[in-house]
């Protein structure tokens, strides 16, 4: 192999890399533009929470958060505006990343409610896989997201160097919500319809987790508490009610969450097995989600409990 050949080869590589970076920059900028111009849908809600939300109360959590906390009721009961940033199917790592980005803004909320699912600390690959939803924000929030995303890959910076990868597979979402906008009430999307005792038998909950506590999730929960504290934002943990009695005996994840809350001096309000909701089929859409009636009642009860416990003061916003 001659010197000339090597030189030519290296020039070709350099040329290709330049063209690749250029194409990625141009097309990636277009896909990012499309991504961030979404007005409705899950990404639009996350983007709003991160960049614009100046509401006093922010709700975080999975579909149970998204479907159970009604901002309108918070306004009526507490006199404060809330935004529901719950994300269906998401788990602790995502909520931690989202919280860090939300708290980077100058205007901070008075209260953050994290809806706790009892299995949050149990190991599941899903928690890592779904971190993709944070990728589009990496360019702007690298410092906040790096500690979370590096749990999923040792090559975060290399992967997310490409804008095309940051917005991977988001185009169809964007087009879908352009074609058919999704209506939310300050982030909350009500569920309608009622379960019956009989219909519950045919419903199954897919178990996506093992019964082993994952250290990364414990770390994320502790860091989440620290982040809220360092930003001087009140954080509380809440569990949503369940239609059937939930057997939490021996649930190591739930016990650990309670222990971490206690150590971090975080108020923990537990509505699992709350008699006002247990076996009240009219309040549920399915086996684990309240319908709109149930969500409104739950938010009302929670609002009163928050005021009673001085977690938040009644106000005009």
């Amino acid at each position, binding site marked *: *192999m001659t010197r000339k050949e090597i030189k030519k080869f290296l020039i070709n590589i350099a040329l290709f890399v330049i063209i*690749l970076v250029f*194409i*990625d920059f141009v097309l*990636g900028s277009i*896909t990012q533009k499309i991504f961030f111009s979404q007005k409705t849908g899950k990404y639009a809600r996350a983007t709003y929470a991160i960049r614009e939300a100046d509401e006093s109360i922010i709700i975080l959590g999975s579909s149970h958060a998204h479907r159970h906390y009604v901002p309108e009721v918070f306004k009526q009961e507490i006199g404060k505006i809330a935004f529901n940033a719950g994300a269906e199917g998401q788990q602790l790592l995502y909520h931690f990343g989202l919280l860090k980005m939300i708290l980077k803004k100058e205007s901070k909320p008075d209260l953050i409610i994290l809806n706790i699912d009892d299995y949050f600390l149990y190991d599941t690959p899903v928690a890592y896989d779904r971190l993709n939803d944070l990728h589009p924000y990496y360019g702007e929030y690298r410092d906040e997201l790096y500690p979370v995303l590096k749990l999923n890959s040792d*090559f975060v910076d*290399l992967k997310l160097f*490409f804008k095309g990868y940051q917005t991977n597979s988001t185009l169809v979402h964007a087009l879908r919500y352009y074609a058919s906008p999704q209506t939310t009430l300050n982030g909350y999307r009500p569920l309608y319809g009622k379960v019956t005792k009989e219909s519950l038998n045919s419903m199954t909950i897919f178990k996506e987790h093992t019964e082993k506590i994952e250290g990364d999730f414990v770390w994320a929960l502790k860091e989440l508490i620290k982040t809220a504290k360092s930003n001087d934002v009140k954080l509380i943990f809440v569990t949503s009610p369940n239609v059937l009695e939930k057997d939490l005996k021996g649930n190591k994840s739930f016990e650990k969450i309670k222990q971490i809350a206690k150590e971090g001096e975080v108020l923990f309000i537990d509505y699992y097995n709350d008699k006002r909701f247990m076996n009240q089929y009219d309040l549920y859409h399915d086996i684990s989600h309240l319908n709109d009636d149930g969500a409104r009642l739950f938010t009302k009860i929670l609002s009163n409990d928050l005021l009673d416990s001085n977690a938040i003061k009644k106000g005009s916003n």
Partner: protein
Amino acid sequence: MLFNSFEFLIFLPIVFFIYWFVLGRKLHLQNIFLLIASYVFYGWWDWRFLSLIAMSTVVDYFVGIKIASLINDKKRKYWLFVSVVFNLGLLAFFKYFNFFIDSWVDLLHNVGYEVKSVWTLKIVLPVGISFYTFQTMSYTIDIYRNKLQPTKDFIAFAAFVSFFPQLVAGPIERATNLVPQFLSERKFSAKNISYGFKLILWGFFMKLVVADRAGVYVDTVYGNIENHEGLTFIMATIFFAFQIYGDFAGYSLIAIGTAKWFGFDLMTNFRRPYFSKSVSEFWNRWHISLSTWFRDYVYIPLGGNRVSRSRWLLNLFITFVVSGLWHGANWTFVIWGALNGIYLIAEVLIKRKTKFRLLALAYTFVVINFSWIFFRSSSVSEAFSIIKAILTSPGRLFIGSGDDIAASIYTVMAIFLLILVELKREYWSERWSLEKSNLKLVKFSFYALLVFTILYLGVFGESQFIYFQF
């Protein structure tokens, strides 16, 4: 190490750089280095199983020399027997032991004897064992047949057995093609590297954009068969046809492209199989390295077509059943192989061919898809349930909700794109090829666009290649 992992993205340029720019033209050093790199590549998955590759290498190296040194055919046969028994023994133990025990217990149960299966073992199937054992067997068999002289260069031979681009899922190379390449000087060629890069990129497109996308729907449906109906199974099976094609042809292209970077030519493994107009043509285009291996080392030794007609058809059938069993230790694979054997026999018996090309393409696609049901199902009873549902209860097509719909749309887009490209290559191969442009800017822009498409549409879950399990 997986091709679709970031470890490989780091590993490959390092190995490439050292191979060409540090070791230069020192052939022996290059071979030593390739051997080390290959063992690192394989050991990344599980270093304990390196011992199996090492044993297979040592046995076949010495057996090869021994066979060539003997004149007495009986003795030559004996040493060939040693090699075949050793390699098939490895396969039999790691891949088929539990299968045979369980099948024996089931058989006894069916004739009224209850036997507890205390013999089954917890065995991990070493990745790629079916591939490298077949490759090394071709070496000793070809020496026995006087088609090849054994090499005395142990390092070159060991590098041939463990060559990392094709170690775990082929193409299953013939010793006659690959061993000489380890013994002669490889020349750095920018053209080869550029061509290899193109193959690697297209391989990644097939794997990450087509196969892994299609796999999401396929796994959802085949993982919960009790919740789905006929139309959904048809859709899932069609998606599976593209998943397995994208997965395996994608792997092969990455392997061939990677080998090109190091100056090696590996055989073509797929030639747009879904454009076949008959099942026999399909098998000339699908997993060519395995089909030709079975042709040369099973079908022809059985007598091929130079025997009576009935024996010829039996030979065809046996070859395909064995090929099915090679794929996996499960009756689903045996039936899959048998079905393909039956298709071929039917094509021999019914000589008439339709003049309508589209009809022939459709026929081939449908019957091949029918056999995929067995290939993808986890048990024979599951496969029959699916077939029953397809025939009796079409039901509603499952498209999921929310993110699932988006995933299905991407899958259809990816398959459409693949078909479009293959259609062009099949019928207008030399026309309108941006990648063949003389203008570097156009050519490189095409490659960069392909990289962007993979980054934007690909699934980056570092999923395994399907054929790793075989």
